[in-house]
């Protein structure tokens, strides 16, 4: 069996595109850290010993969504071994979003929740005690008075009228790109005209993927300890040491020069250790107790609280000619980012840039939403942003093949992109290899394909007409359908009015915003509806008490704007496909 898993290098493919003088690829090379691994000496974060090490454990929400009326720590504080209980008010700058480090998005997540919690497992207090058991016992003794709120766990339900507001920073339950766009748009040609052609078959599909936990063998954690020079050392399991450093500097409002971070030996990450919040809590614990503090998740926390690859739902609609050419493909996608942004805003951009997959399709349209729900915040995991939609695309390719009566591999070869083709994001394809992958896969699987398909190549037949950017429908302002007028939506401090009802139309064109006058009204406009183009399922039961009817819950805002840490003045904006493009 193991002999069957050897890598086979197909050097016959694209042989003239490279010099075959590789010194490492294809040759066995020992890992530089392998001796440490087989002797058990590789220094994982928890392998550092500190005398007098204290243990931190968090008090967590048992509810999807609840207001915190009161946290009673009196009994817990008096328990044996308890050194300190940290609450949100002890965090110097208790609001952050990971990508604020590159000036993208809004701070929307506290280190320790104060006003309310928005997912099961969200931390509201951190107990520091002399032993782990004492910390666990004290956590069990903290009393939280919860007022349970209606919750929403499905992204389309979260966009429906009357849905509970998950996160007051995003009152429409969607991430707003550049404070303006409720979703990521891609328009290439005119899909509607293609769908109306008489010579095409329409193939539609709905696909979804559940959240996936990275489940590293080493659970996430950090140990922080005071050093002698006013600095704090922090051993961490992070995959992204400088994200962790910047996040800690910001949340604790201290210069990063006082933080001595040590990482790099990671017991499996797979994306789940990119946005950990162990370091700021451990360092804060070390600051407040003057002692070394360890904060590590147990396996149950890793599974429940650890940010997974988020759920996704995709709707695809293709127009296919009788001979199997896909002439139009429309996507509508929902990324379930959970209660806080983390990296999902970026995942949506990645997904949009990837569409329509490795195929050349002359008309492509896509609307992808990053939606807040009362689920565990989602984050990175191996190819996130791409994996879910590729699953949808490839399932759909099989469905199309079946519908038009074509072999599924031949259908892929027929529609595959080739060198020189224009992609929907308006870059020419190069180094394409889907055709060759399909051919080799068919050969290895003993799957017969017709000789003309076996003879096709990524190197020929591309470019020419296929390199053209088709005429794309825009309005007189040069905007594609559904783009709001230029003025950014006001930054909301209070819950916005309920979104307008979803249209029941099956058109890809959302109703209102495109026709809005370009000149801004004198008074701040009501938040434009986040109109899912197709009717979203109504929530299972209307919440008894809608959050909109409550007194405004003002999200926590630090009194002083954040000034220290790693944020540089004049940091440039993150460009995106449909946002402001630099250059």
């Amino acid at each position: 069996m193991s002999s069957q898993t050897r890598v086979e290098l197909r050097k016959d493919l694209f042989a003239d595109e490279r010099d075959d003088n590789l010194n490492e690829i294809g040759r066995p090379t020992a890992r530089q850290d392998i001796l440490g691994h087989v002797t058990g000496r590789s220094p994982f974060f928890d392998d550092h010993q500190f005398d007098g090490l204290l243990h931190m454990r968090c008090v967590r929400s048992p509810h999807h969504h609840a207001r915190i009326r009161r946290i009673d720590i009196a009994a817990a504080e008096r328990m044996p071994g308890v050194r300190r209980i940290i609450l949100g008010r002890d965090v110097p700058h208790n609001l952050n979003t990971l990508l604020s480090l590159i000036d993208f998005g809004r701070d929307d997540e506290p280190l320790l929740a104060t006003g309310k919690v928005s997912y099961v497992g969200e931390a509201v207090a951190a107990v520091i005690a002399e032993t782990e058991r004492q910390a666990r016992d004290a956590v069990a003794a903290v009393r939280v008075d919860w007022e349970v709120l209606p919750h929403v766990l499905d992204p389309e339900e979260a966009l429906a009228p009357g849905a509970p507001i998950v996160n007051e920073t995003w009152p429409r339950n969607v991430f707003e790109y550049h404070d303006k766009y409720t979703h990521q748009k891609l328009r290439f040609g005119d899909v509607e005209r293609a769908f109306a052609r008489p010579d095409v078959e329409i193939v539609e599909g709905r696909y979804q993927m559940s959240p996936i936990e990275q489940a590293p063998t080493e659970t996430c954690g950090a140990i922080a300890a005071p050093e002698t020079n006013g600095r704090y050392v922090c051993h961490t399991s992070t995959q992204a040491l400088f994200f962790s450093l910047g996040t800690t500097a910001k949340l604790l409002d201290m210069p990063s020069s006082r933080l001595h971070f040590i990482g790099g030996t990671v017991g499996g990450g797979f994306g789940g250790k990119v946005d950990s919040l162990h370091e700021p809590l451990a360092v804060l614990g070390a600051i407040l107790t003057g002692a070394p503090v360890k904060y590590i998740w147990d396996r149950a926390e890793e599974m429940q609280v650890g940010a997974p690859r988020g759920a996704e739902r995709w709707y695809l609609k293709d127009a296919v000619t009788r001979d199997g050419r896909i002439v139009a493909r429309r996507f509508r996608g929902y990324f379930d980012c959970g209660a806080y942004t983390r990296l999902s805003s970026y995942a949506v951009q990645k997904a949009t840039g990837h569409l329509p997959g490795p195929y050349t399709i002359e008309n492509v349209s896509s609307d992808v939403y990053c939606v807040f729900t009362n689920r565990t915040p989602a984050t990175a995991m191996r190819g996130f942003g791409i994996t879910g939609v590729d699953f949808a695309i490839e399932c759909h390719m099989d469905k199309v093949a079946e519908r038009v009566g074509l072999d599924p591999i031949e259908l892929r070869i027929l529609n595959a992109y080739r060198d020189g083709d224009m992609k929907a994001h308006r870059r020419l394809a190069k180094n394409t290899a889907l055709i060759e992958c399909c051919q080799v896969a068919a050969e290895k699987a003993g799957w017969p394909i017709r000789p003309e398909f076996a003879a096709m190549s990524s190197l020929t037949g591309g470019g020419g007409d296929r390199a053209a950017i088709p005429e794309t429908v825009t309005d007189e302002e040069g905007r594609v359908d559904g783009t709001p007028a230029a003025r950014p939506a006001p930054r909301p401090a209070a819950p916005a009015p309920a979104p307008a009802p979803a249209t029941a139309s099956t058109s890809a064109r959302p109703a209102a915003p495109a026709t809005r006058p370009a000149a801004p009204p004198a008074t701040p406009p009501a938040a434009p509806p986040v109109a899912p183009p197709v009717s979203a399922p109504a929530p299972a039961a209307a919440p008894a008490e809608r959050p909109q009817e409550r007194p405004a819950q003002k999200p926590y805002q630090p009194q002083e704007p954040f000034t220290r840490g790693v944020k540089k003045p004049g940091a440039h904006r993150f460009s995106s496909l449909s946002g402001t493009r630099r250059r």
Partner: protein
Amino acid sequence: MARTPVEFRLNGAEKAVFVEGGANLLDVLRRGLGDMTPKYGCGQGTCGTCTVLVDGRPQLACLTLAETVAGREVRTVAGLPDGAELHPLQDAFMENFAAQCGYCTPGMLMAAAALLERRPDPSREEVVEAISGNICRCTGYEPIIAAILDAAQRRRRRAS
């Protein structure tokens, strides 16, 4: 807090430690005795990362009440090498690329060591069974299986 003295042999050396009530063997080895080779993965017996040998049998250190090893012989990866010479399993793991992140490796090595001591010439199926309680999330089971089979050969060669 109640502390109980426990004496046992760790990798051939006599050890005496005071343990807190309910302490598991993993914490005693790591924090009490400074042997950091066994790792914490789950605390519930599902991952095998903390596998050690107790009187030659594989056991999960995280589920072993420290008192229960009194008078017994505990072995960890720290005791695998013979002086400066690595154990054949360690050599084979290195050469077969049987570790990626390295976190499950100590548990895998001890599960494999338990097998080879009972079955010096195991079949592939026996190897698979022997590591069936050990999770590798970098998903390198094939190289691990190959390494254990290779180690068995090396061991026999070394013995002959």
